[in-house]
């Protein structure tokens, strides 16, 4: 039994969710290989080789993988999988994994098991459905299990201690079907949302994009990432990549501060596994208070500056 993990990386380093994905693979059992498909991605391949528990790194390097498309990455993955030997193919349930893995599964004519949070056995997994209000235990009858891993369900594997061999493998030829022509990445001084230890999130209660900036000073004091509810994204206060929830990002930081967020189930789906939850809202009946460890009822426009100052 051998698991192949498809690396989410930026050629120089691995995305944080990769380390949690390795832990999920360890729970499945058997050997763990990591595929790094990129262009001049030696550094990412070396980072993968150092993860404790990784036995081998496959490195596919080609110019057309510099800005990888789902079509090109899945072609390389499927070529390797058809070579045989892999019982499981995993990727983190990041934007990359969600885009690529269903394509891999369909080309192999197997089901995908999305966003697992528990490994119960080599063929049995738990995954949240209905915005996390229900947990389903599913068993796959396919020969190859294609799986995306929800990072918050698993601890991170150690980034060092491993010394896996790095083996060059051919990249599948450029399919030419699509190409990446531009990127507009959000510029932020703040830590990355899904791996931050502290997250400060704002909702519709902030009232405007201008007011949302109030949270930046608080986030800076806490060294926190900034997040938002879908309502705040819909209202145009912040870009979509801030969104925490069922259809946005899933986070589980040590501390989650929800400001002006009422707590719709779709938002709770993205943050209810946080260790400590603070809710600040003027409505004492807001559902967010039911799951908050520390609720503070009041006017956020007074509380946030006071809190920022109190954190000195």
């Amino acid at each position: 039994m051998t698991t192949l993990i498809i690396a989410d990386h930026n050629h120089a380093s691995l995305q944080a969710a990769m380390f949690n994905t390795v832990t999920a693979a360890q729970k499945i059992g058997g050997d763990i290989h990591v595929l790094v498909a990129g262009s001049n991605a030696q550094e990412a391949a070396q980072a993968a080789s150092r993860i404790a528990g990784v036995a081998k790194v496959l490195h596919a390097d080609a110019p057309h993988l510099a800005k990888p498309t789902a079509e090109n990455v899945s072609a390389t993955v499927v070529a390797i999988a058809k070579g045989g030997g892999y019982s499981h193919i995993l990727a983190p349930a990041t934007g990359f994994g969600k885009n690529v893995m269903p394509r891999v599964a369909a080309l192999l004519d197997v089901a995908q098991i999305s966003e697992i949070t528990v490994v119960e056995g080599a063929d049995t997994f738990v995954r949240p459905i209905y915005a996390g209000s229900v947990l389903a235990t599913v068993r796959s009858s396919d020969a190859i299990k294609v799986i995306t891993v929800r990072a918050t369900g698993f601890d991170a594997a150690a980034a060092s201690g491993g010394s896996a061999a790095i083996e060059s493998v051919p990249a599948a030829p450029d399919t030419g079907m699509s190409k990446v022509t531009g990127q507009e990445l959000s510029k932020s001084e703040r830590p990355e949302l899904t791996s931050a230890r502290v997250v400060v999130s704002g909702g519709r209660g902030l009232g405007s994009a201008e007011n949302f900036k109030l949270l930046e000073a608080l986030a800076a004091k806490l060294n926190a990432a900034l997040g938002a509810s879908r309502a705040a994204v819909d209202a145009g206060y912040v870009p979509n990549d801030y969104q925490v929830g069922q259809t946005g990002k899933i986070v589980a930081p040590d501390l989650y501060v929800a400001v002006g967020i009422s707590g719709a189930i779709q938002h709770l789906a993205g943050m209810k596994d946080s260790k400590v939850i603070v809710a600040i809202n003027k409505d004492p009946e807001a559902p967010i208070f039911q799951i908050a460890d520390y609720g503070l009822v009041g006017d956020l426009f007074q509380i946030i500056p006071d809190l920022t100052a109190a954190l000195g």
Partner: protein
Amino acid sequence: MKVLVAVKRVVDYNVKVRVKSDASGVDTANVKMSMNPFDEIAVEEAVRLKEKGIATEIVAVSCGLAACQETLRTALALGADRAILVETDTDLQPLAVAKLLQALAAREQPKLVILGKQAIDDDANQTGQMLAALLNWPQASFASKLDLAGDRATVKREVDGGLETIELSLPAVVTADLRLNEPRYATLPNIMKAKKKPLETTNPAALGVDVTPRLATLKVVEPPKRQGGGKVADVAELVAKLRNEAKVI
């Protein structure tokens, strides 16, 4: 050009779902059902393409129980021209739906298939990408802006760090994200007109598709309830509790 739009009937967004007492699944009896919200965005995008004179015909497709006809009537009321129901009682999983849509795409020859990025019941986020793979077409998942010119599409996609622009050749599969558009509401006259639009019914066997589930659901449970409800009186107490009790700052 012809556009195919896939729509799924799901438990309404506002319903609090309950697990059946035997833990075999979610209770959907006597529960309000609606079109999956992301599929509404997909239908809206197709209708806007028609209003711009780019799309010539919009075919809405749904797969599942006979009751999916209601979902298709909604799509027709929003502006689809005709509808196809692939009727079956089998519990359809994303790979099976992708194969059914592949069979219909082979028959209908659309230039574009638009789907919601994710259904809010099974939260799988697979069908569009799988369909693109089966058709050997390019995919633009999580689209927030779609521009078509001739045989090319330019799509802005939501990615983890922001936005990515991709160019792809048609035919292609696009999955709709939240910011692609704001769907309209069906008006009463359009709801009436939709009743007269053609709705064809077929089934998996007629399309030559094996829809046998690959995943068995062993049990379905509610997660443990989080113990919350604690309150603090003011900022000073909050900071003290975070420092001394929770020890997170």
